[in-house]
């Protein structure tokens, strides 16, 4: 239930209807199913959808293209990254991103990071400062550009040491967009 008030008037909005997309999109197969479920992940992030989406992407011949399209186009969320982890798991279990089951504790796309001599600074509202390690992923190429990074909390921000992200152009003050993802067990 979402409560909104304007001009002193409060209204409640029931959000429970955004469910069960898997039932009525069941007639879709293959890549079409992968695309439709990819586009629905942020509205329907149940375990069934995540599993079904990951499976249909992983089984496609152009799975890397579909995965990249998802990471570049979708709003990054734990559900989206859970799909990515399972797709990578199916093709390269040794990859740092590969992971079975569960959703990461948090996953967010950082569009406004800046660097200084001490590291890369960015905000992640709502993410507790207790997380100390994460993955930094380039959505354009999640397989080749994915590093384990340290997360240092500093004044409502997080800082990643410059050397931790190997694929960044260190000369840029404004950093390219990247995905920060922390696993459940870290």
């Amino acid at each position, binding site marked *: 239930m*979402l409560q*909104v*008030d*304007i*001009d*002193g*008037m409060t*209204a409640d*909005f029931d*959000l429970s*209807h*955004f469910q069960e*997309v898997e039932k*009525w*999109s069941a*007639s*879709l197969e*293959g*890549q*079409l199913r992968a*695309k*439709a479920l*990819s*586009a*629905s*992940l*942020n*509205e329907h992030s149940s375990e069934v959808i995540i599993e079904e989406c990951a499976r249909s992407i992983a089984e496609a011949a152009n799975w890397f293209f579909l995965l990249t399209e*998802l990471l570049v*186009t*979708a*709003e990054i*969320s734990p559900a989206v990254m859970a799909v990515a982890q399972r797709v990578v798991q199916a093709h390269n279990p040794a990859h740092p991103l590969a992971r079975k089951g569960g959703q990461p504790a948090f996953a967010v796309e950082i569009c406004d990071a800046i660097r200084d001599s001490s590291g890369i600074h960015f905000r992640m*509202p*709502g993410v507790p400062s207790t997380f100390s390690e994460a993955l930094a992923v380039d959505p354009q190429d999640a397989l080749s550009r994915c590093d384990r990074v340290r997360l240092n909390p500093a004044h409502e921000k997080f800082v990643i040491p410059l050397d931790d992200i190997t694929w960044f152009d260190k000369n840029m003050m404004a950093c390219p967009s990247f995905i920060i993802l922390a696993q459940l067990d870290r």
Partner: protein
Amino acid sequence: MDARTLLYRCRSADEEDLPRKKIALRTAHAIAQAIDPSITASAFMDRAANVVKRVYGGSAQDSYITTTMSLVSNFSENIDVYLAAVINALVVQLNFQTRIFLDGNQFALFDGQDEYFALAMLHGNVTMGIHLTPEARQVTLPRWANISPALEINADRMHHLPPDLVPIYQKANGCRSVGTVLVVNPSVDSGEFSLAERYSFLQGSVTQDTTFCVAGPAEMVFHAAADLQRMHPQAQLNLKAYRALFGRAEEYRAIMLFSGLDAVPEIVVRPGLSRPCEFDLKLVDLDENLTSVSYGNDTIAGRRNSEADGPARGVWEKAAVKAPFHLSSSAPLPAEARERISSEFEIFHSSLAIRDGILIPSQDAHHCTFLYATGEGRVLNDYGSDPSVTPIYTEGWLDEQGVRHGILHGRTLKRVRGPAMPLMFTPLLHKWHSHFMIQCLPRIRIVRDLGLDMTILLPDDMRKKQLEMLERLGFGPSKIVMMAPDELVQADMLYYPWPWRLGFTTYTSKVYDEIAAGIETSHIISPKRILISRESRKSWRNLINYDSVRHMLVEDFGFEVISPEKLSLSEEIAAYANAEVVVGAEGAGLYGAVFSGPKTKYITVCDEDYVMPILGSLAAIRGFDIGYVFGESFRSDRDVERRLPFGHADFIIDVDRLSQAVRHAISP
């Protein structure tokens, strides 16, 4: 951001989105109030619900869509906000200056449901938009267009054109290519079509950058997407399946965007959706999916068939007809007609409930009816309506067992969660306000008696006053689902009350007591002697010498003419409640008598064929006196067999006979 990101970056809103949403909504509400001060924050939010619940794209795009679409939703009902946002993004991104400089002007081609053309063109200020229509016509902007800079539309760039004129306009406006082709909720009437064939005039105008958008029922879009993937695997395709919410109804819909082609693809679009059906369901088949429901056990005085099986279960309510204080006729009245205005009659109260029931409107020049089917498509054969008059039936086929099969078509299917009931028992019934008052609005009592949180199903072209009456009975927009004539509706439990015959009863007239009780009218001054105008009548049952009647009543007796359809609800209630004598032709104009009491006298004028007990039944309930002056109809003797019971011929009234009746009414 590319329009396709809207397919991926959409989610339900949460607390963190509220600050942004609130700023956007406040702006929109202020603009809405400037246009129409009667729009309350509560009504505004009700109509903006779909916009509030979802986040559309990134935060900036969501702000834009929240402001614009909450405003549009307040002036155009039943807009699929998501679809509007996507097609709008496709057009606005054609404004991109560098693209224009390098590739030349591009235009947007729109084909489909009218109201989405303006939504697509919102802020598409330099992009030419062409709406494909059978004939060229003038641009008419929707009410909300340009009422604020937030809703800016450049009408100079919009055109409604037939296919053969598109290349001419394209050339004249220097458009080298088509930037986007929008196929939006195409009409079922157009039948299935190949994109390549339908848009053959675009030959040479499609480039790899042209984005095609096909939007409509999920079933239709999924078929088209499968076609595209099979025939053009190199196309860049994105597909979004979603539920569009329209108050209490939802539709399973989809949008596909594709590009990367050099020509219009051969794919086939099958507009709307189809469901197989069979005409084998009879009332003897009552089971847990089709049940007989009785209502009004505590509220209707009448003869009960509570022990009966199936549809015979219900209540027979007796309706008295008041004897007239005056009766005069210029032509012989058939015995049946005399009997009708002298004898009491009964109305049967009963209902069916169909689990996952589908409501199917069917109408053409020769018939107009609702069919009812179970979720599996079994159409009910022998209750209330006759399926054999519908094209679904006549175009169907018999199987080896002799069961008739058919196909249900709809532009879309609205799914309603929980119980639902149509207020009308045929799709067009509300067009005749008399039927609405007698047989439709009082169905609200059934809803109450059943004690369910029922959704009311209404046609999408109700009169403002009809909606106001519903709202006053507690059935405002949040409890209503509007359906277009080409839409199917399916409800978890669909209620199908037995249609009432024409006449008021104690039970049915009660809703009008409630409406009147809720409206203050003591400050309204209204005439004592009223003639109900026939001037706006343009169809059948015209009182041809109305002007003579009017002249006599106004000049000789000081009557004043009122047109109830032009009065507000409170003015209408006051007029009928305060009048001493009312003269009018039998019809909706006289049934405002629901607001009258014993001090009023009614004189109904009509032809000798149209003799109805409606006003007489109301007189028995409200206690007013009623007189009849029958004139003569214009009707061939060859039509005599079809004159009764409800002949609708034009007629004339003997003015002198009416004058005598009025004298009788006003005599002490």
